[in-house]
Structure formats: structure tokens, C-alpha cells
């Protein structure tokens, strides 16, 4: 005997396959497999090696070498500048493209290594369908690899159409053919597309539909060419999806693909978390998509001092200064010192002609309201309303302006639904006032509705009455705000971002205007902010909803 594996099998070195098998069988019968797992493993190993050696020695005279095979194996990290042996031989010989060896990437059991030379049978007669498929293959090949050279250029429209036609002919053929041909077509197309990437990009998806390439994605035995193509396929799919506005990472994608450095405002608008998610996703799954991103921007996003940490940006707010003065019922405010007079005035006011009162009340709250209705809804406010009507009779301060101001004050006590209504009222007033003049608008902002009465369209007017009546019925109009003057709120980054998207303002102007109530652009900005807030009022804090 002559060493391993022959000793293990108990025979002399031989190239006789059946002698090896017989020796293996005899030894196997002497084993209790479940009790001697190791013995079984080494026996099999010896048998496999012996068979392989036998094969080698019987081929020693031939020109068979394993080297060619290794060349054709694409490693997972291969850059696909791999040989074009298969493709080119397709040009030369008639049937080689069906000869692509079915070649598992792993070595299993005992492996009869693929032997292209020996295995190739006498060239079989090709059927008509096979000839047609072969023509389609060659045509597709020369589109993807023009003049035998891989090209980075995209295919032209004509090439695209022609390529699709050839590809569907091949797919059709595969669905009608036996497993050998099907498998050969499947593997050769994968190989061709991988090698001709990115020129092959438009053809990968239809081929995937036919051969279920993506089903193999992520499996341990994914063929190397498919590992490459599937990654591209998933990348292309992701690229398409992320460009849709409703994709959760769409904003991060748009942000990262814009040129230039990231600014503070960008950080406010885009959630750091989403940017991080996108980075991780692209780097782990679709590395080729990184070329779509702007290098500088990517770099500046990635440069975040450790102390800040990644989550901080989404919690950043910009300060927003608001100044408002509230009017109090003249009876209480102007003449608070003299309670007697208050009483007297109240009595007087009761004396006002009911008819006149009803007209004024209807002008404010709409046709369904008279003093009795107001009293029923909110008795305290009814008294205040009386007093305001009296004041109106004696000064330039209108009852309407009083109610409007009261509505602003009510914000401090409003729950969500009413706070939203007040914000809507405010936007209505500001919009109407801005149509008149910037000054008018600025007056409204600080709560002065008397200096320049707001002119409203019929629709605006109707809506105002409706909203005011709602506040009345909620019992909010009798409330008196405890605070007035200047206050500052925090506006969340995303709202700032929205304003930038919707207006022409630059970051600097916007930031300045938010902090300076006197700013020229303040009115427009406040209207825009209110608009944004009213679109998704649930997204802001109740404080902001009340304050803005």
C-alpha cells in the first residue's frame, strides 16, 4: 500500500474507480455509522480523494488542466474585469453557449470536477429554435459588448429596443428548453450582464423576472455573477423608490444629492436619523448609489463633533418672538377704579335699543345670534359684550375689535380644537390685512384691530363669524389673558424648513424676521408659518399652537 488515502481504504494505489468503490463499500459495511461518525467521515474523505486521484492519473496524458476553470470563477469581490472566454467563444463556435458548466461554487461530496474538454459531446445538431436563440444571443452580446470591448456608455434607443427583443427571444427559448439549456442561458446571461455592467442595466430587470434571480439573493450559494447583479438590481429598485416623495428617506436623499456644504438650516430641516439611515443603507447594501450623492455634502454631514451626537439636530428650534397687546373690556380696564361707574354704565347699556344690539351682534357672530343667544352661551361674555358696545358708542374702539382681540386672548386657555380655530382666525385676519397694507397687518399682529379695521371678502367674513361663534360657544371669549407683551416661542426645524421651501426668503432673512417682530417680511412669514402649522397641527406643541 502506498499511504493516504489508499491505506484508509485498504487497497493499493489504483486508477480503477470500481476497485475504489468496492473497497469503500466493504469498509462501510463494517461501520456502525451512528456510532462511528468520525470513522465514516475519514472513510468518505479517503474515498473522495482516491477517486479524484484516479481521475487525475487517467487524464495525465491529456491536456486537461484545472487552471482554466479557476479563471472563470468570479470571486465575490471580483470587479468583473473577468475574462470574456465564454462570450467570445460564442462568436467562434456554434454551440458553446449551452456548454457553460453547471458549476457549484462549493466542493461537496466527491466531486467530479467539470471537464469541459472531455464532457463536450460530439456537437449536437441544433434545432431551429436553438439556432434562433443562438442568433439572439450573439446579437445581444454585440450590443452589450460592442466590438468585443466592455463599454461604459449607455445603450442608444435603438440598441435598447433591439436588445429587449433579443432578450425576450432568449427568455422565451429558456422557458421551452430543457434544464441544461435553461440553466446555461440563465448563467450565461447573468455572466454577460455582470460583465457588461453598467451598459446592461436596462436588461437586468426583465431577465430577473424570467429567471427569478432575486430569489437567490442572500442565499449562501448565490452565484457570484448574481451576487453582483442582485446588488445592482436592489440598488436600482431602491434608487427608483427613494426618488418618490413618499419614501421615508426621500428628503435625506434629496439633501445628500444637493451640492455644497450642509448648513444649520439643512440640519434643521432634515432629520439626522434619516440621513444616518440612508448612509448605512447605501453603504451596506447599494454602494454604487453613493456616486449619486454630493461628495462635499456627504462629507460635511458626516463631520459631526462627537459631543453633539447624531440626534441633536432634530430637536433644534429657532426662537420666535411674538408681541401682543390685549384689550380688556373697557368697562373693566379704563374705568376699573370706579366700580360705581361700571355699574351705572352697565345699567345704561341695558338701555341700548335691543334692535341695534342685535344688528351689531349679528354682524359679529352671524345671523343666528342675538344678545339672548350670547347670554345663553356665555353669560359672563354677554356682560362684557354689553360694555364693549357701550364703549363703542363713546369711543373709536369698536365692539368688533374687542371681540377679535378677545379671541386672541382666548388662545391661552384653548384646548387643541379651539387653538386650531384661533390660529385659523389669525391667519384669516393677517391675510386680509396684508392685502390692505403691511401696517394693517402689523397692527393685527400685535392685537390692535381698531387702528385699521380689516376689510374682508364675504367668504372671509362668513368664516370669521363662524369661528368666533364657535369660540363663544366654547366659553372661551370671556376669558382674560394674564400675560401680554413680548413672548418668545420655539419653532421646530421642520417648520423652518417648510417656510424656506415655500417662500423666497433666505435663511438669514428668515432667522432675522423670526426674532424681530418689526421686520418687513414678518407678516408674510407669520402667515406661512400659520399655514404650515394648520396643515398638520398635531405635529406642533400645544404651546406653539396657542402662541403663534
Amino acid at each position, binding site marked *: 500500500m502506498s499511504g493516504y488515502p489508499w491505506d484508509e481504504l485498504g487497497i493499493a494505489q489504483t486508477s480503477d474507480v470500481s476497485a475504489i468503490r468496492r473497497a469503500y463499500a466493504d469498509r462501510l459495511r463494517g461501520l456502525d*455509522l451512528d456510532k462511528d461518525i468520525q470513522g465514516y467521515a475519514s472513510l468518505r474523505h479517503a474515498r473522495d480523494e482516491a477517486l479524484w486521484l484516479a481521475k487525475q492519473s487517467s487524464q495525465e496524458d491529456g491536456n486537461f488542466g484545472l487552471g482554466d476553470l479557476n479563471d472563470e470563477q468570479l470571486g465575490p469581490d471580483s470587479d468583473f474585469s473577468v475574462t470574456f472566454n465564454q462570450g467570445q467563444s460564442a462568436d467562434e463556435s456554434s454551440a458553446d453557449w449551452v456548454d457553460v458548466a453547471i458549476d457549484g461554487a462549493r466542493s461537496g*461530496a466527491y466531486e467530479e470536477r467539470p471537464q469541459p474538454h472531455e464532457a463536450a459531446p460530439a456537437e449536437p445538431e441544433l434545432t431551429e429554435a436553438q439556432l434562433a436563440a443562438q442568433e439572439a444571443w450573439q446579437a445581444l452580446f454585440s450590443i452589450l459588448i460592442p466590438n468585443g470591448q466592455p463599454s461604459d456608455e449607455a445603450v442608444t434607443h435603438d440598441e435598447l429596443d433591439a436588445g429587449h427583443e433579443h432578450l425576450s427571444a432568449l427568455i422565451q427559448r429558456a422557458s421551452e*428548453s430543457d434544464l441544461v439549456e*435553461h440553466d446555461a442561458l440563465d448563467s450565461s446571461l447573468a455572466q454577460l450582464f455582470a460583465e457588461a455592467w453598467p451598459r446592461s442595466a436596462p436588461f437586468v430587470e426583465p431577465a430577473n423576472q424570467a429567471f427569478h434571480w432575486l430569489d437567490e439573493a*442572500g442565499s449562501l450559494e448565490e452565484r457570484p455573477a448574481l451576487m453582483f447583479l442582485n446588488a445592482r438590481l436592489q440598488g436600482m429598485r431602491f434608487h427608483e423608490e427613494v426618488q418618490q416623495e413618499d419614501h421615508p428617506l426621500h428628503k435625506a436623499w434629496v439633501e445628500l444629492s444637493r451640492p455644497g456644504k450642509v448648513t444649520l438650516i439643512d440640519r434643521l430641516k432634515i432629520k439626522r436619523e434619516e440621513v444616518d439611515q440612508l448612509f448605512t443603507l447605501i453603504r451596506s447594501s447599494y454602494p454604487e448609489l453613493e456616486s449619486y450623492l454630493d461628495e462635499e455634502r456627504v462629507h460635511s454631514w458626516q463631520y459631526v463633533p462627537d459631543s453633539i451626537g447624531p440626534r441633536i439636530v432634530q430637536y433644534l428650534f429657532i426662537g420666535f418672538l411674538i408681541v401682543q397687546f390685549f384689550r380688556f373690556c373697557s368697562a373693566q380696564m379704563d374705568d376699573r377704579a370706579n366700580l360705581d361707574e361700571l355699574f351705572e354704565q352697565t345699567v345704561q347699556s341695558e338701555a341700548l335699543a335691543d334692535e341695534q344690539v342685535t344688528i351689531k351682534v349679528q354682524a359679529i357672530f352671524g345671523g343666528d345670534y342675538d344678545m339672548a343667544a350670547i347670554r345663553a352661551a356665555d353669560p359672563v361674555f354677554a356682560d362684557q359684550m354689553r360694555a364693549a358696545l357701550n364703549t363703542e358708542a363713546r369711543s373709536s374702539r369698536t365692539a368688533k375689535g374687542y371681540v377679535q382681540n378677545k379671541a386672541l386672548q382666548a388662545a391661552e386657555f384653548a384646548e387643541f380644537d379651539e387653538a386650531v380655530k384661533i390660529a385659523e382666525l389669525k391667519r384669516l385676519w393677517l391675510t386680509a390685512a396684508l392685502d390692505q397694507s403691511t401696517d394693517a397687518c402689523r397692527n393685527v399682529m400685535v392685537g390692535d384691530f381698531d387702528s385699521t379695521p380689516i376689510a374682508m371678502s364675504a367668504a372671509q367674513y362668513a368664516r370669521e363669524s363662524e369661528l368666533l361663534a364657535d369660540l363663544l360657544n366654547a366659553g372661551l371669549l370671556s376669558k382674560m389673558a394674564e400675560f401680554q407683551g413680548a413672548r418668545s416661542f420655539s419653532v421646530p426645524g421642520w417648520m423652518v424648513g417648510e417656510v424656506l421651501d415655500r417662500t423666497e426668503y433666505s435663511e438669514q432673512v428668515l432667522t432675522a424676521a423670526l426674532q424681530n417682530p418689526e421686520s418687513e417680511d414678518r407678516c408674510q412669514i407669520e402667515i406661512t408659518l400659520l399655514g404650515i402649522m394648520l396643515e398638520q397641527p398635531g405635529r406642533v406643541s400645544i404651546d406653539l399652537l396657542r402662541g403663534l
Partner: protein
Amino acid sequence: MIVGIDLGTTNSAVAIWRDGEPKLVPNALGKELTPSAVSLDKKGQTWVGQAAIDRMATHPSDTVSSFKRMMGTEANVVLAGTKLTSEDLSAMVLRSLIDDVEEAMGERPVEAVITVPAYFNERQRRATRRAGEIAGLDVKRLINEPTAAALAFGLHDRGDREPFLVFDLGGGTFDVSIVEMFEGIVEVRASAGDNRLGGDDFDDVMVKLAEPLLGDLGALNKVPTDRRKALMQLAAEKTRIALSSAQAADFSVTVEERVYATDIATDQFEEAAAPLVKRLRDPVIRALRDSHIDVQSLSDIVLVGGATRMPVVRKALTRMFGRFPNSTVHPDHAVALGAAIQAGLLSGGEGLDEIRITDVAPFTLGVETATRDQHGRYHSGIFAPIIERNTPVPVSRMEEFGTLEDNQREVRFGIYQGEARDVSNNVKLGEVKIQVPPKEAGHVPVEVRFTYDTSGLLEVDVHVPDTGVTRNLVIVDEEDKRSRKDIEKSRSKLEKLKVHPRDDAENVAALARAERAYEGFTGMQRDMIGRWLTEFKGALEKQDPRIIVDARTDLIEALDELEANPPI
């Protein structure tokens, strides 16, 4: 005596090794195949096999079939108020098969070889073994169905064979195995499959195809869902079988004396079944790739499983392999016969001295691992294979892993089976935890050894050399801890159920069949069957065996004739 049992989705069979060959044991009705169906009533009376199938139309909510598809899952069914798992149901079928053997051999078998689809996973295999135990059997070995079929195919002339392919499409599962025979060794080179694809799926396709063609469903829509489903499935199966020998067949359902019928043509069915046929290709390709054998060098294509009789499947096969399959083995008998051969091997049966079988593990087995990338990010859920699929079994392999964190105190291994890199796409079999001494990350080696036995069952040992501690995981820990007690409980539950006396089995089956026929016909025929039923019941009451046998023979002949020449 060890019996070989084919526990199928649609049909089951039992065989024994006698006088140097495997022999099928017929059931009480004299048939080799016992439908895998069970029916119960409120009194705890059970029907197994053909009688249960016949009760499917009349008592759909108390009858169940195809429960093999639920093996290894938590699912259970309630039949006439009794809750049963697929293991219980399988145990009832097994028990009925052992009864048949006891009747034939005069001795009750206590040991068995049971077949499972090659592509059954660990959970499904364990569930099958438990079913055997509930039925009171010591399950000596689980053997893969295509391997059993290969044994039956290979042993009929015992010559050497170049690699051949076993294509096993049963009622609910699909397996492909590549097998070679030399010097009395039957060597499985590779197996692949789809444990969720079978003849039942083709029936579903048939139902979907036929339903819209039945026109106004009227009364059919008023029938309870389970009954309607049962009726449709029975009709689909009938049509599918009829299409095996004709270009078109009738699909008809009778409800409350109304007949809903349509014609189904072969090409219509083929078109509807195309997606299923496509799914047949992938496992074939994978098995060939794994075994490094190309289609041309296959010496034979062996068909097993009732669903391979369908012309649509045959056609796909012929196209795939470019030749006609071998049909020397009986597609319904080969698996049970092969199981009996394996049983003979285990008991040292005569004439089997030279024969040995070696099989492979059809799934990759491994553990969940985690790692850090160069940015320090933590990636978990990565599958690290320890035993790759299609490795010959038994096999025992060890891999070494390390700790991930400094001063880590415990290492936890999730044990998985499957082919995906991401463990969440594989089947989790269990988990094992072990304490490790606190040290720098990566400095505590942990050895994991997987041992896979010839029944395809796994054992995992985890060893920490630093402490000398070894943990042995019995897979699916929880289930196995419970299982002793559970098996006892299930067994006593099943024992409370009443089985028809064996002498009565044929009468019970005849009655169930007549009652089903009564539902299935209308008008004159229905009245006729009604009269036959009354007569037969009268004969039964007389309790004279001779009268009963005559009445039953008459009834069955009459039914045979009626069903062979339906009036429509």
C-alpha cells in the same frame, strides 16, 4: 418486527420485510393505501382512512385530511369538540396502520421506520417522531421519502447504477434527490425540495379555475364555508384525476339536489397551474448543482408520489429533462416499500447483508453570530453555517467562536436551519446559553459542535475550554422537555376515542360511502341510494355476518356501477 411506514399527506401505507422482500400490508378494506384522513363524532367515535374521506362531504367540520402540512407547527384542529394536533391525527393514522399489520401478522408491531419528506425541517421531523410515540411505536429511524423510493427502485435488480434522480411530488411536499448505487451501497448525493408544494396546491388551482365558471352559485353560497370547501376540493381532486386520461373533464358539485358543473379543459388547467410547475424547476436545478452532476449524465428519472401522475407535471418533466421518466416503480407504493427495506436493514433481515444506505442533510445548519465592522457598528443576525447542506450524514462538526464584548459574561447561540445569510429568514431550532469567564473581547473561545444523525436529527454541544463547562442542547428545548408528559397525555386522549371494531370497518366504510353518494346525486338516483342505505342498515341490524356481507357486496357493486356511469 420493525414495520416501514409511509406517512403521506394524502395516503399512507405500511410494509414489512418478509422472505427477502418488502411487502405491503393491506388495510381492513383490502387496500394498500389508507387515506390520511380522520373524522370524529361527538360520541368520540373515530373514522380513519377511506371512511373518513367519505365523511368529508357529509361532515366536513368533523373531518380533516392533509394534516401533514401542519406538522411541526402549533396549529391544531377541533373535530366534534375534540382538540387535536397534527401529531395526534398522524398518530391515529399510524395506529390504524399498525392494527392492519397486527391483523395480518398476528403480532402487534412496536418498532417502526417512518418516512418523512427529505425537505422536512428539524421541527417537522421531531413532530413526526412524536406522532409515532403517541401511537405507541418506538421510531427506530426516520428515513427520507425519496431515499426510501430510491431503495425500492434500486433493489429490484440490485445492479450498480449511475446517478439517478428521484422526483417525489406528493400531496403536500416536493423532494428531489440524486442517488447513486454501487456495490450494494445506496448513496444519496444531494436532496432539495419545497416542503410547501404538492398535489393539494394543484387542487386549489383547480378550485380557483372552476369556481367562476360554475355560474350563479346560489345555493352553493349558502352552504357553510367548510362544507363548501370540502365539496370543492373533492370535486377538484376528481377532475384532476379525470384529466389524467382525457382532454377535458367535468367539475361538478351537488348541493341540496342542485348540480353546479363546468367543463375544464387540459390546456385551461395547464395554464392555471403554470406558476406551480415553475416552482418544480428550482429544487431540481439546486440538487443538480449541489451534486455536480449534469442532466445528461443522469441515468434515470424516477417518479414517486401520486401527483406525478398528472399530465401537466409529466409534460413539465419531459421538457426539463429532455426525456421520458422511468415508471418502473409504483409511485404510491415505492416509499412504503423502501421504508420496509430500511426496517429490514435495521433488524438484520435476510438478503440485506450487502446493502447500506448513506444519506445527506438537506438543510444547512448553523448558529447566529454578530460582528463589528471597522466603524464599530454592530451587525447581528448573521448566519454562520456549521454543517452545510447536502453533507453526508451522520456528521459531526465543530466551529470555534469568540466573545464580542470586553468582560462578556454569557454567550448565547441561536441555532438555525436554512440557506439565507440573514438568520431571520431561516428556521430557528433553539437556543443555547453558556457562561464565560470575563475577559477581553475575543479572548474567550467557545466551541460549538453540531452532530446530525442518520434520522436527520440534530444535537448541539457548546463547550468553553477555559472553564471546562459543556452545555448540551436538545433541540427545541421547551418542546422536548414537555414531550414525555405530553406524549402520555396525547396517548391517553386518543385511547379514549373509540375505534370501530375491525370486523366492522368495511361496513362503516360502505355506509360512509353510500351517505356521501346520497349527497352527491340528485333525483331518481338519490332516492335509489336512499333505499339501498335503508336496506343495508336493516341487514346490519340482523347481525348475521353472512347477510351483512351479501348486503354490503350488493351495495358496493351498485354504488360502483352508479358512479362509473353517472347520469349527467
